């Protein structure tokens, strides 16, 4: 039962991660990433880490990828092009990936002891109480710093992505739309030009609400 489940999960994770990299539509890529993360979460449960598995689903699959989907839909990104126009770099990249995987596998092989036995772990290993016990004693300072990091991230995102034009009292003048006086001058110039040549005014200030 155990080995079969692991093989299924491994195949699902690798296949969906490859599909994520290869697929042309960004939406499908994100959905394949959800599958990868879900498979990883089940693997965490197999490795006696139920708390981290639940966190993986809540944080990664439930929040981070939803954020990705939001941005993709917000920017209305169309299907992308997979590869460079030349085939050379693609094969080089695949060889690079194979070399990295092989090197990591060699390190694992060299570093871990022979034999596949898992050492016995105490009851309640990986439960919320055990992780919390360590988190709030030995890792308390990183915990507090992480909370500051999250606040900074939130404020930074709001500052970076805010729409300057939409804020009331904004002094920033986006290009193409002048201040109110400039727009009045442009409208006056249009009317003068129309009166003198008898044509329809050609020049219209962009975003002028009266047009």
């Amino acid at each position, binding site marked *: 039962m155990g080995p079969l489940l692991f093989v299924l999960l491994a195949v699902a994770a690798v296949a969906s991660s490859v599909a994520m990299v290869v697929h042309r539509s960004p939406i499908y890529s994100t959905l394949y990433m959800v599958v990868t993360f879900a498979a990883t979460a089940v693997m965490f449960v197999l490795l006696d880490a*139920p708390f981290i598995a*639940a*966190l993986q689903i809540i944080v990664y699959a439930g*929040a981070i990828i*939803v954020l990705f*989907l939001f941005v993709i*839909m917000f920017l209305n990104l169309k299907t992308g092009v997979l590869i460079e126009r030349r085939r050379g770099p693609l094969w080089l990249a695949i060889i690079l990936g194979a070399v990295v995987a092989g090197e990591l596998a060699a390190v694992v092989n060299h570093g871990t002891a022979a034999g596949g036995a898992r050492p016995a772990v105490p009851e309640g290993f990986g439960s*919320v109480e055990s992780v919390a016990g360590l988190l709030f004693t030995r890792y308390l300072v990183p915990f507090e710093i992480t909370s500051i990091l999250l606040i900074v991230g939130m404020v930074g995102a709001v500052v970076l992505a805010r729409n300057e034009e939409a804020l009331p009292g904004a002094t920033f003048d986006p290009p193409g739309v002048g201040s109110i006086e400039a727009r009045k001058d442009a409208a006056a110039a249009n009317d003068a030009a129309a009166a003198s040549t008898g044509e329809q005014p050609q020049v219209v200030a962009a975003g002028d609400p009266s047009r």
Partner: protein
Amino acid sequence: MLDALGSLGATALKVAIIFGIFLTMVAYLVYVERKVLGHIQMRRGPLHVGFHGLLQPLADGVKLFLKEDVIPEGADRALFALAPAICVATALSTIAVIPFGESVTVLGRTIHLQIADLNIGILYILAVTSLGVYGIILGGWASNNKFALMGGLRSTAQVVSYELSLGLALVGPLMLAGSLRMRTIIDAQAEVWFVVLQPLGFLIYLVSALAETNRIPFDLAEAESELVAGYHVEYSGMKFAFFFLAEYAAMITVAAIATALFLGGYHGIGFNSPWLGPVWFLAKMTLVLLVFIWIRGTLPRLRYDQLMRFGWKVLLPLSLINIMITGAVALWRQG
């Protein structure tokens, strides 16, 4: 071997029974809502199909089943079909960890009235609820319709925002019971229910649950008169039935969680017997559901910016204050 097979059989039977009861409840919740809303609005509700309209859910089911399944041109067919499935799957998966009663002994075997007794019960509920967002956002996107996309994005932002206060409101009972396991939390309410100890938490939870399931007063993103019914405007037939089912199933699930975590679960007032536990549980759940329907019948809906402002600027700080007060009182009583 026989033991494993026996426990597998017991689990399968439990799943069948609980799901059967659950789906019947969903169908009749729709009927009860229409009747109660009707009476609130000085009319009768469904009356003709069967005695006082009791067979109305059957008629609705037949109608939705036989309706033509329209897939709009240019819609993403795979995602269009996947979205309602995700909504329903996540709405139904949550009841796996809800204990409906204490353990009963039948034929010498002890059977827990719960499908899966996880150590991280509450985290499982939060995780599955956060996966339900995908049905909404994919349904909005896959419909190839501006209104559906806007409604889907708005609804997703709303659900994600209120998930925060929902999770934080659940931290209160967690702190009082000292465990994430649902059964332990219910057993910790044997003397006094957590709604007495955590009134603010209970209110925050109810309001966040209304927002999570897109109910009035938070249903701007899917109301029929706003944004042309939002993310399920292009759905018809069985797919729409699935969205509908998912919404009412989610309502029942949040009512069940409120009962388990705040209202004492299967502990009754007065006589207590292991076989009476589920009856008490269902009675309390029905009370919470009637409150939800009552709110639907009496309150207007919030505008979207009012909704988001309320979630972030009112509910989130309140739930944090609730946690701080609970922690302070627990520490004070312990020391």
